[in-house]
């Protein structure tokens, strides 16, 4: 009865060597907690240069993605032909289409802004790369979406695309004239891939902070002081937009 006791709670002051004997769940918990340290996720203050419209398009793109996912879920519940025969289905389909239009427009403007800002500076190469991957993944998702409209438009696109894909040698595995397969790609596989890439992209943005304009003074990383256990300090460049824009 008096076997070795096990502690259900992790003790933050215990030495690092004890971690080798932890369960995988405890290790996973620590990894998740360390992924974006407290103070870096949903910060309540931002550098002054964030008070610009050009910094709005990333989150506008993200908001569009949320509308896309919700409207897409409703559409998939109704089935591929629902929007042809239902007024509500037509409305939801239009919401899905226009949120995609907004998603791509805001994503491309976000891309232009970040490109001319050289946003890969300051150890942000992976942030830039995941953004590019999200863009290309979204292109594939949009393409498969056009293929499952179940109308002449979809038929035309699929019959044109099959020749190119066959010429590339992948038509046997990615058959654009197979409605069921394209449905699977569009509502399941590609959204999961794009969603995962977007999550990594946002985590990287939160960890490394938004890219400063060229020539601007970059503050210390958000939450760095809090993560180190020190009181947060504010240099002139870190003063936040929440309490007013300061030049």
């Amino acid at each position, binding site marked *: 009865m008096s076997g070795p006791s096990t502690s259900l709670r992790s003790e933050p002051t215990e030495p690092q060597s004890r971690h080798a004997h932890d369960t995988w769940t405890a290790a996973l918990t620590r990894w998740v907690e360390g992924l974006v340290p407290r103070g870096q996720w949903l910060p309540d203050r931002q550098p002054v240069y964030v008070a610009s*419209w050009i910094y709005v398009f990333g989150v506008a793109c993200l908001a569009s993605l949320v509308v896309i996912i919700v409207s897409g879920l409703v559409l998939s519940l109704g089935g591929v032909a629902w929007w*042809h*025969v239902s007024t509500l289905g037509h409305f939801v389909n239009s919401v899905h289409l226009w949120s995609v239009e907004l998603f791509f*427009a805001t994503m491309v*403007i976000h891309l232009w*802004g970040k490109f001319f800002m050289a946003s890969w500076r300051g150890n942000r190469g992976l942030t830039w790369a995941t953004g590019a991957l999200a863009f290309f993944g979204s292109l594939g998702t949009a393409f498969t979406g056009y293929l499952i409209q179940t109308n002449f*438009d979809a038929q035309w696109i699929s019959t044109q695309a099959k020749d190119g894909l066959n010429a590339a040698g992948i038509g046997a595995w990615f058959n654009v004239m197979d409605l069921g397969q394209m449905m699977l790609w569009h509502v399941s596989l590609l959204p999961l891939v794009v969603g995962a890439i977007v999550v990594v992209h946002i985590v990287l943005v939160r960890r490394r902070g938004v890219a400063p304009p060229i020539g601007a003074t970059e503050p210390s990383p958000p939450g760095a002081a809090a993560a180190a256990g020190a009181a947060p300090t504010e240099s002139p460049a870190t003063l936040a937009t929440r*309490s*007013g*824009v300061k030049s």
Partner: protein
Amino acid sequence: MITQFLAASQPVPAGPVVQWGWLTITVANLLVILLMVVVFVLALLLPFPAPREDEDQ
């Protein structure tokens, strides 16, 4: 329902296109791209609204 299916089965015309040399683009797509450029330039030029004074408290 049959009427709706018939309406959905009508081909949608591609619309007018413009052509410069090797480039062919529909007017609709060209307008969207130009609108995006305008929004991009405005985002760089327009001042961002300052927070209200009472938020300083």
